[in-house]
């Protein structure tokens, strides 16, 4: 079975040429890499906190209405310590996961269907883009009328917010698969469903990931709007915590909740999608291995 090619005069030249032409990634320690990507972020956060504090020092608004970072973080610490913020975060993240999960399934199914079936594309292709431009908050009055003040109403709007972006990402990914790769796949025997599995979907993945990332941003916004508008007893999410802090005139608490909302949004965007995106781009050779 093992095949041993007979040594030929050209083989040494070939090996020499190969060695010259292969890219060798520059070694840089992991710690250095992480640090060089982190310090600008820390610096940015520091500047924001500083500007915030300066506004407070300058008495831009009365201190009880617009508390400084110190008061906000003390309040955040208390809320973390007494478990309130964690419970609210748990409720919100559960809704986010369910809503985004459903959006992912529906968005992918619609994306594939529209990319595959010409009639569907003609019928709803532009509608999907249209849906994406519709502010998802505008769905809430209808959702509340139809589903009452329920989890379903919130999920409905979250899904409507996220699914079109996900579908669009997949559709444009499938549309932009290089024809050469399709032909190469066909020569190898990947036709029909196999072409989708082995060629089209993997090739469409970077664009799909972009759609997923955008979909997450929409889902998170819709969810916050939903939690402000749709209040369900015993199910206090971050949106409700935010609004009730305002009603209780607990302004440090309001600031603390906003920080949590912002941080969760950023973490998912950069830690989950950002890392995935970089991995894909590196694997495809779209960025240098060292950057």
């Amino acid at each position, binding site marked *: 079975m*093992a095949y041993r090619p007979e040594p030929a005069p*050209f083989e040494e030249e070939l090996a020499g*040429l190969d060695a010259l032409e*292969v890219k060798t990634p520059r070694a840089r320690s992991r710690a250095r890499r992480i640090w060089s990507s982190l310090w600008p972020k820390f610096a940015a956060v520091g500047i924001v906190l500083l500007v915030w504090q300066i506004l407070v020092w300058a008495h831009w608004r009365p201190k009880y209405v617009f508390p400084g970072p110190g008061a906000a973080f003390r309040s955040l610490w208390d809320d973390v310590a007494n478990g309130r913020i964690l419970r609210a975060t748990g409720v919100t993240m559960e809704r986010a996961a369910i809503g985004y999960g459903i959006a992912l399934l529906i968005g992918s199914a619609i994306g594939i269907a529209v990319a595959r079936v010409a009639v569907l594309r003609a019928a709803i292709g532009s509608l999907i883009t249209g849906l994406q431009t519709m502010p998802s908050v505008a769905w809430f009055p209808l959702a509340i009328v139809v589903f009452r003040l329920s989890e379903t109403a919130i999920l409905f709007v979250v899904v409507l917010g996220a699914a079109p972006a996900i579908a669009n990402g997949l559709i444009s990914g499938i549309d932009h698969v290089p024809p*050469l790769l399709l032909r190469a796949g066909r*020569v*190898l025997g990947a036709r029909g469903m196999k072409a989708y599995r082995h060629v089209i979907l993997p090739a469409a993945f970077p664009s799909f990931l972009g759609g997923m990332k955008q979909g997450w941003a929409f889902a998170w916004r819709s969810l916050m709007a939903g939690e402000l508008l749709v209040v369900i007893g015993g199910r206090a999410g971050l949106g409700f915590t935010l609004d009730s802090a305002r009603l209780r005139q607990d302004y440090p608490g309001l600031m603390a909740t906003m920080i949590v909302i912002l941080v969760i949004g950023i973490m998912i965007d950069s830690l989950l999608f950002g890392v995935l995106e970089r991995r894909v781009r590196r*694997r495809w050779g779209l960025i240098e291995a060292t950057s």
Partner: protein
Amino acid sequence: MSLRPRARETTEPDLHMGSGSAVSLTSVSKVYGAGAEAVHAVDNVSLDVEFGEFLCLVGASGCGKSTLLNMIAGLDKTTNGTVEVRGGRPTLIFQEPALFPWLTVERNVDLALKLRKIDRADRKQVVGSLLEMVHLTGFGSKQPHELSGGMRQRVAIARALAQQAEILLMDEPFGALDAMTRDLLHDEVERLWQDTGFSIVFVTHNVREAVRLADRVILLSSRPGRIAAEFPVDIPRPRRIESPEVGALATEITARLREEVKHHGVQT
């Protein structure tokens, strides 16, 4: 699954004897579009490729070289005439390596085996020996973008070999490579062809390359693509692209090619 190469000199060619040629084109035409705007890409081409033959098609732009290959590969339908292919579905190598950028070198080759429903247990070993055949042992876990153009094209060749097709169609496969890499790949392809006993149809616009590689060179005329002339190449192998014999025949074919092109200019 056996990957054992058949040595051309030692195996019995009568395996295929009597069953005709590897590829038979009979009065094949291809017309794109219709009416006044119809373009005759290929017109009435009849051609046989023998089993184990290395055939090169040369011609200027618009001679329908790629169209012919696509029709043999089954990627394109004929307008008229028939294409007969024996010995399984042919495999096609493009000018670009067309590797899948999301897969490693190994997995690119592996996919061809997977699509042929080869057992996972056997695949690893076969992939290893295929990469060895194209001298890329040790590069299996690289991503395609980490390799040079010539190495990528060799991965594409390994992937094509994984299909165990007996007919290899090559569409200007080395057109985008530098001269030194190209010369080395000529040696590589010639050796693989001698070891495996494939039939190869190789399309190129480089006449010297055709003479360096082929048993027979077919010259195509342009618009419509027709067979203009046929040149058997009796130069003993191994050949060098810079050898005087190769140069002499290439000069002769080039002169004929120029005539074809000139003639075309007079017509229009």
